[in-house]
């Protein structure tokens, strides 16, 4: 429905002899125009209906596979192989969870993953915040050169092999510290933190300095308390990354079962199935499914691995939304 201009604006100026419109009149025009632009004629309804269908479909496609995995995990193992389980388990059983917890390496992996997530998040947050604090000091002499030094690392890196050999020389491989030390500083996170700190008023620092506070005191007592939201964002980013990474465990600690991680253990479980799919009739029929891990156990392992993060993320929404906005739009 096209809105006819002479209905309002033109008529209006004519009848008032070209005088300026008063606020109320302007508001009335805006209201009418707004109403007209959202008028529920055929196209308007079609749009709303299509949009709703699209978003509902989107939600189902996102949610269903995850829900389906949960349903499979609570189903009896042998029965699940037949397939045909959709939203609810057919034969309820928690046997699969028992099996998962008894898999060798799974408990070790869980312990290591929790440890690396907690320790890695803490060290990385402190390191990134400290570096960002230095870079955001407007009177720091080497401020721009320090920034450049770290920005370059975002775009240039040595590549997989030189990094791996370096870690070997430093005796970081076959050790727990390979999860913590190399990834401690991330230039992207530093830039997000720096942008946030730069927006804080300079007077805070100046008045503290007049009171005789050193830079360390300013960082701990003045800047950090104000940065709590952005600290939460960065902590979330790092924690999720730590929890989900598996490649470092495979590349550097393949031989060390005591340093395995949850994701790597899950990968070993799932990979036994994925690789067989390539065979000509590689469907999960009963004969192959018996050799590989049963689907219910795989599902249970998946659920155990994803539950902690799924439980946490909805409550941290506002933090990662602000963090991403700072990083993406301003950074």
């Amino acid at each position, binding site marked *: 429905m096209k*809105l006819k201009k002479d209905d309002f604006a033109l008529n209006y100026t004519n009848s008032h002899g070209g005088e300026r419109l008063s606020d109320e009149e302007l508001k009335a025009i805006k209201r009418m125009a707004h109403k007209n632009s959202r008028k529920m004629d055929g196209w308007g309804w079609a749009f709303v209906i299509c949009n709703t269908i699209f978003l509902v479909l989107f939600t189902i496609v996102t949610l269903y596979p995850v829900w389906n995995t949960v349903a499979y995990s609570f189903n009896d193992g042998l029965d699940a192989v037949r397939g045909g389980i959709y939203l609810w388990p057919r034969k309820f059983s928690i046997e699969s969870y028992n099996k998962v917890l008894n898999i060798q390496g799974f408990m070790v992996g869980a312990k290591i993953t929790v440890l690396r997530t907690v320790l890695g998040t803490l060290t990385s947050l402190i390191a990134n915040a400290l570096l960002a604090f230095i870079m955001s000091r407007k009177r720091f002499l080497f401020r721009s050169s320090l920034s450049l030094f770290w920005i370059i690392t975002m775009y240039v890196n040595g590549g997989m092999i030189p990094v791996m050999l370096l870690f070997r020389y430093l005796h970081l491989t076959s050790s727990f510290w390979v999860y913590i030390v190399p990834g401690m500083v991330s230039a992207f996170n530093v830039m997000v933190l720096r942008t946030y700190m730069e927006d804080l008023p300079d007077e805070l620092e100046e008045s503290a300095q007049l009171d005789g506070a050193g830079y360390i005191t300013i960082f701990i007592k003045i800047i950090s308390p104000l940065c709590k939201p952005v600290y939460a964002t960065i902590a979330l980013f790092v924690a999720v990354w730590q929890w989900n990474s598996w490649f470092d465990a495979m590349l550097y600690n393949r031989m060390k079962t005591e340093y395995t991680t949850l994701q790597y253990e899950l990968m070993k479980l799932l990979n036994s199935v994925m690789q067989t799919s390539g065979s000509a009739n590689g469907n999960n029929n009963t004969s192959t499914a018996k050799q590989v891990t049963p689907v219910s156990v795989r599902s249970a392992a998946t659920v155990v691995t994803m539950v902690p993060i799924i439980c946490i993320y909805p409550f941290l929404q506002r933090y990662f939304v602000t963090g991403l906005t700072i990083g993406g739009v301003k950074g």
Partner: protein
Amino acid sequence: MANEADQIVNTEEAAVENEINAEAETTETATETVIAENVETVAETAETTEGNAIDDAYEVENYAKEAYEHTSTLSEAQIKALSKKKISKGELKRQWVLLLISFIFVLYGLLFYYLPLGGWVMAFQNYKLKSGLLHSKFVGFDKFKFMFEFDVFEWGLETTGNIFSAMKIWIDKVVFIRAIRNTIGMGILNLVTTFIMAIVFAILLNEVKNKLGKKLVQTISYLPHFLSWIIVCGIIHDSLSSTGIVNELLRFFHIVDDSYNFFAHQAWFWPIVAFSNVWKETGWNAIIYLAAITAIDPSLYEAAEIDGAGRWGKIRYITLPSIAPTIVILLVMNIGNLLNCGFEVQYLLGNGLVQDVSQTIDIYILNWGVGQMDYSLGTAAGIFKSVVAILLILIFNTVVKKMGQESLF
């Protein structure tokens, strides 16, 4: 319609004019602030230096006067240099903590980010662990020649006399060339699909007026981002398996009789990878666009409404142009990752039947560099990847700059 567009352009022009005026004002005030800063820093220096307070105070006043008088004759750059010098004197004492800590961070960065670049030497050596970097034999570009197998291309060119068929032979016969094709192909496909989906999703979600529904859909849309690639690949694999939901639906609509094995057909691999990326990241990528959309001045929409724009008109003439700078910036940022976005999914979902279309440069490095322990070859492939990535960023950045959009640097 054209008339409406004109009017919107007019309002935009007016906005730009306003901005220019504001800018002119700020440049006028900028010189003043520089002076003020100068005075401040001088005052600071005075505070830190020990000595007779009264004399110092007198001197500070003088300095300030001098600084003020200088501004009339000196250029802005000179003033900046002057003020910088003044800082260094007094602040140095106080900044030692910052210097010390940043020194530690620079050491850390040199060790973990810059030292591996020295490892690039390996690509031109026949690197052996025993002899190390210093005593391994240099072989020039041999590793690159081995990787690219240019003679295959030349042979193809001689036999067919056609560049395109020679390229085809090259891709068919040489593993690394195939890896390059797969990486770039999947990279572009992923980039385009995830970008379009995120923008469409953000715009459509923004049109929803029901607050609760909007929040719910958005919360659910983030969910896959927080799952690891292992889980996502497991889920995608299960959904496409013979008992999975996709085959159930195909059977239900009688499109297939038994089941279709998606992972046994090369044609399906790239779309599956692209879908995995879209499934995982659409909601997450849309966050930035939604933020950009909420930042749009509502008066622009009001103006468009008065001009008779409907839903589509407002999306086309207000929303899209307003988020265009965000789109461009994100595009430039992601171009550098074009070659990086091909590893985990391909590694996890790939299998023997589809390896011709699934192997990427990273998997090549993993197979040769780690699997076969040919460190030199792995490094050479890594160098190729890094160099191409940097070139892509530089080229794209220049293009964007030429087009008059905001750019990275």
